[in-house]
């Protein structure tokens, strides 16, 4: 089969057979996840290893993690359209695509995670304004709509679709007003990223995650927004670099990556400083006032104090320092290390805020709760990864995702 008519002009793509083979491999993983998803929907959440102590588990972590790393979309959009960092126009398409994948995955995971999926709309219909989860549901859905609007022009720019005058004009006009959507996205993201922090931060029955705050918002609310803005660009850079390795091409110029890396570095450093202050206050004031010491929270080998050190030092200070130094971010090795550590760091933060919160004993006669996910949980968590790979492959092949690709890879 020849699909060359669909491929953007001036760029080279692998043979269709090779493309189809990799789509097929990712498709098998996807089908495995879809099978597990239907098992959960038809047989119920007894297919998981969650229990009454571990009501929130792997899925909620995956949800929080993909939303955090998907923050690259809103923050890049904010920098490009509102702050005026024009160079970022060369990576914004990819940031939007990654964000679209992350947010659609998050919504899918949530749809699997509820005990009565057919009643999931109750969250909108019977909304409780006091619940952080309500805020998450509303802002997440609205922001996903914004991302869809931001992704549509990319689809319309496919060579064949763009030949239709209506679609051509629609794509053009959508690009013209994209700043409005970027601003809307930044506003919505501030709230839903924060609300996800608030989900854990307001739990005054769980001293491990509970944080004091200002008005109705716990400090975790602001830290989650800040960390998503800080680490989201790390993930955008990481996926861009992985794409470059797989395609064997340079797709984005170094100055663009370096600008994003520098901003991300300063955001990470300031976030880590704020997180450190928050941790000290929580350990010295908040938790003791509730009858808990820091030793109590880090009492096992899995959830030892090492986890806090890893999050703050390896996931915060180290990538931050590398990225703010010119030498660090210009070095390919330094950049790889920084973005990988950064993504692991923010994922670790989401892990402890969900899973360690559940694991720590609160009642005096309880033991630590530990849990190992079932294969159905693993498969449904891998599902979005396979889906993301497929969508990236299709988008890269048929849409002009990287505006600098042609210039960086001229065809003789």
């Amino acid at each position, binding site marked *: 089969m020849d699909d060359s008519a669909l491929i953007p002009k001036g760029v080279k793509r692998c043979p269709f057979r090779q493309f189809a083979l990799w789509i097929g491999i990712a498709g098998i993983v996807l089908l495995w996840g879809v099978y597990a998803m239907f098992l959960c929907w038809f047989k*119920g959440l*007894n297919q998981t290893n969650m229990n*009454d102590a571990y009501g929130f588990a792997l899925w909620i972590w995956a949800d929080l993690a993909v939303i955090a790393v998907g923050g690259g979309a809103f923050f890049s959009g904010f920098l490009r359209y509102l702050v005026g960092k024009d160079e970022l126009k060369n990576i914004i398409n990819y940031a939007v695509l990654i964000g679209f994948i992350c947010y659609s995955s998050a919504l899918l995971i949530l749809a699997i995670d509820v005990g009565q999926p057919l*009643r999931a709309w109750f969250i909108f219909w019977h909304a409780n304004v006091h619940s952080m989860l309500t805020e998450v549901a509303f802002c997440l859905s609205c922001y996903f709509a914004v991302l869809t609007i931001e992704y549509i022009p990319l689809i319309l720019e496919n060579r064949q679709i763009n030949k239709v005058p209506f679609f051509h004009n629609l794509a053009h006009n959508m690009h013209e007003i994209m700043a409005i959507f970027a601003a809307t996205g930044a506003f919505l993201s501030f709230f839903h990223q924060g609300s996800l922090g608030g989900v854990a931060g307001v739990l005054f029955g769980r001293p491990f995650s509970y944080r004091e705050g200002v008005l109705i918002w716990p400090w975790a609310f602001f830290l989650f927004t800040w960390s998503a803005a800080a680490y989201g660009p790390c993930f955008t850079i990481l996926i861009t670099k992985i794409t470059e390795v797989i395609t064997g091409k340079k797709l984005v110029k170094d100055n663009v990556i370096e600008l994003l890396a520098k901003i991300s570095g300063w955001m990470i450093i300031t976030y880590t400083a704020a997180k450190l202050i928050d941790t000290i206050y929580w350990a010295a004031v908040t938790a003791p006032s509730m009858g*808990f010491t820091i030793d109590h929270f880090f009492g096992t080998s899995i959830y030892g104090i090492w986890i806090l050190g890893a999050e703050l030092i390896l996931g915060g200070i180290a990538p931050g320092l590398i990225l703010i130094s010119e030498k660090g971010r210009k070095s390919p090795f330094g950049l790889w290390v920084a973005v990988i550590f950064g993504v692991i760091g923010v994922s670790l933060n989401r892990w402890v805020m969900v899973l360690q919160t*559940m694991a720590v004993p609160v009642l005096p006669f309880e033991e630590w709760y530990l849990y190992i996910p079932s294969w159905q949980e693993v498969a449904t968590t891998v599902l979005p990864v396979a889906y993301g790979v497929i969508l990236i492959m299709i988008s890269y092949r048929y849409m002009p995702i990287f505006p600098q690709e042609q210039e960086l890879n001229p065809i003789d």
Partner: protein
Amino acid sequence: MKNEQGHHKTGKKYGMVIDLDKCTGCGACMVACMAENNVPFKEDETNKLDNIMWMRVYRMSNGKPFPDADICYIPRPCMHCEAKHGHSPCVSVCPATATDYSHETGIVSQIYTRCFGCRYCMAACPYHARYFNWWDPVWPEGMKNYLSPDVSPRMRGVVEKCSFCFHRYQLAKDKALTAGHREIEESAYQTACTQACPAGAITFGDLDNPKHAVYKLKHDPRAFRLLERLGTNPKVYYVTDREWVRWMADNYQDQEQKAKG
């Protein structure tokens, strides 16, 4: 309903006082609760992490070797927390308003038909008083005929919990109205666990009503509540002579105990 100051008029505040020195850990309260409230069970109930027990008896130990070893059984229903401004840990987080704090009775209720099973309330409850229906209930043959008609059985995928036998409150209220009484008498509304306890360890009533036994008992200097310092403001009190139980119940650290004498 709100008064002139804008505060909710609290009609009643039903609660419990459990005498831990009387509790033998026999489990009659658990059995009575399950039978009364159509609580589903599995063939094998050994895994306590996925079974449902609205009332569960825990075992506390002082951790000391013989001859100082001591244990205490501590029955744990839902605490029906009031917290600040009536925002119980679970009520304030439920995104679909599927759990409610009644200012008429002080009881935290669960609306099964509205719950969509997100389990956020379970994450919020420090007492593990909320249970998820991981399976649809399966009743042994013939048992369906013996289910209580006053309590709706729950389906797979929703959360349930102790309701302080709310259906008994409704029946008592109806009876009182029919008889022309304004007030429900203390004896007219009692939970199943209270009545089943062979040692008489559980006392139930209106915590704000000086005529009710719980009012006096909650002011006992030996009375305490579980995890009081979290700010959940529970309506279940415990009474014991044993100081170590009182310290442990609120996670008092050694140095805090010394400082408090």
